């Protein structure tokens, strides 16, 4: 069996003073796979993403990312590991409004030498990498690169966020309800673009949403409630 990109086993987590929120006996995400993870708000998905990002530490169990046991790393090392290997896309307002579109896309390269190096290796320069990614995502206009991020439409902003998640080819892209602010047609178009870019970069996609209508587009889909033994029966 090949090494999984993400491998969780016997994971348990609860916020201090609260009942057990997550209890996941086993979970795998394969390299290159696109996974739809359904979870309503309050089901612990944000917490799960925090654990995968190494922001929080589980109470027990193991989280392996690319074979690296996250629980064994220090907080600083987890931060570094996250930015080197994971790109994030959030619901909306993903961008720093006071930076230009190009600067927003290049942000991870300033904090990860690995991703900056990969961007330069593949595209010649970080600027070129940003321009190429944006062009693939349908933002071809060179003037747009230097505009303030908040002057773009929501749909455009989400594509910029996708470009930022993908720059420097992280192995994993985590998307947390990235389409909730888009209308249906735009959602599907956005996801197809995202798939294409993830495939090109060889990245796995973990897509978290409560919107079941998108699920058929993915390689696999799962419900967090099925995974999580701590979920209340009503959610299952």
């Amino acid at each position, binding site marked *: 069996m090949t090494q999984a990109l993400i491998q969780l086993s016997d994971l348990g987590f609860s916020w201090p003073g609260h009942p057990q929120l997550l209890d996941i006996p086993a979970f795998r995400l394969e390299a290159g796979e696109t996974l739809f993870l359904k979870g309503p708000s309050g089901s612990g998905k*944000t917490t799960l*993403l*925090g654990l995968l*990002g190494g*922001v*929080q530490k589980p109470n027990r169990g193991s989280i392996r990312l690319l074979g690296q046991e996250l629980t064994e790393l220090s*907080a*600083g090392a987890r*931060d*570094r590991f*996250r*930015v*080197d290997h994971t790109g*994030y896309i*959030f*619901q909306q*307002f*993903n*961008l*720093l*409004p*006071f*930076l230009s579109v190009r*600067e927003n896309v290049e*942000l*991870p390269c*300033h*904090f*990860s030498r690995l991703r900056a190096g990969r961007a330069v290796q593949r595209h010649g320069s970080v600027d070129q990498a940003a321009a190429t990614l944006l062009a693939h995502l349908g933002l071809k206009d060179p003037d747009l690169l230097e505009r303030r991020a908040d002057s773009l439409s929501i749909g455009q902003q989400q594509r910029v966020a996708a470009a*930022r998640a993908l720059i420097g080819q992280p192995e994993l892209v985590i998307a947390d309800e990235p389409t909730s602010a888009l209308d249906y047609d735009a959602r599907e178009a956005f996801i197809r673009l995202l798939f294409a870019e993830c495939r090109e970069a060889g990245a796995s996609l973990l897509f978290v949403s409560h919107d079941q209508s998108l699920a058929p587009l993915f390689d696999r889909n799962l419900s967090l409630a099925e995974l999580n033994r701590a979920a209340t029966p009503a959610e299952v």
Partner: protein
Amino acid sequence: MYLFRLAMASLANRRFTAILTAFAIALSVCLLLAVERVRTEARASFASTISGTDLIVGARSGSVNLLLYSVFRIGNATNNIRWDSFEHFANSPKVKWAIPISLGDSHRGYRVMGTTEAYFEHYQYGHQQNLQLASGREFASDPFEVVLGAEVAEALHYKLGDKLVLAHGVAAISLVKHDDKPFTVVGILKRTGTPVDRTLHISLGGMEAIHIDWHNGVPAQGSGRISADQARNMDLTPQAITAFMLGLNSKIATFAVQREINEYRGEPMLAILPGVALQELWSLMGTAEKALFVVSLFVVLTGLIGMLTAILTSLNERRREMAILRSVGARPWHIATLLVLEAFALALFGVLAGLGLLYLGIALAQGYVQSTYGLYLPLAWPSEYEWTLLGGILIAALLMGSVPAWRAYRQSLADGLSIRL
């Protein structure tokens, strides 16, 4: 370096608050430096109220009191000294020049000083500057001539040839006037920025003449009165004067002459070194000056606390910004550094703008301040001490910046990547 750019971009995004905050700091810095400059200059100009004079001599009292009435025209002499005591020392071989001073009358609140031509020749202020006439001439042989200080002439609108009447005593409103013996303005002095500007100068003869028919502090009545013309023909050598100033042939002799005067058997007298007495006086006034300085330091502190408040208030609404930065790989110490840099940048803008305001202010007010208060404010680079103050402000800003930095550090650890609203 990249963090600094991020901090700048974030500040630029909140430019209205940022500019206000920096402006508050700029005003406080400007105030602090202005107070510091005026303080330095006031001290220097105070110390140069009188120069070139080796000893000031008066009736025995306190040295500050003697300095106050002889140089600053404040307060009164406790006693007079006899004319022959003055002559005794004025004719001493060690003495190069002597200026007698006779005080006690006034004109509309300005003091009148009786003296001799030696005053115009030897009295010096500032950097060994002699008095100069703006117009007219020194008083001459006629006793009823007056030379006005610059401020007296300006405030009371006197010009050459005007007649004025002196009042007995130094109260602002005097009921007893020497109105039988009016004086003619023959000269007006150039501005010095010292108490000379607020003085009317007459000859000792004039001083004697207006009091010649006075007995026991009241003017003679009826037939006892002596007219101005009669007085002109009388011997107007005074019996007593208030004080005198001495210039010596050799500075080395200063202490010897001082002791000689203090031990003079003719009458009890006190000789003081003006520089020493000035220092003593300044140390009395120094408290007010220090208080002013402390107040302006507190104003700077207020400006910095304003900055702290502005940054702390912004923290909550910037959680999203912090979370985005965390999601693209910024570690909590990056976030903390960002906030310290922000505080530092605000303070730096404030300090630079404050310097700009200061120089603008000095450039605009320089002429006015010099002509009105006799203070010369130089458009010079900040002194070493001023640089130290500015450096202190920046360090204080860094320390203050560490408060929101610490909070943001904690906040970004707790919030992680989740964006809560």
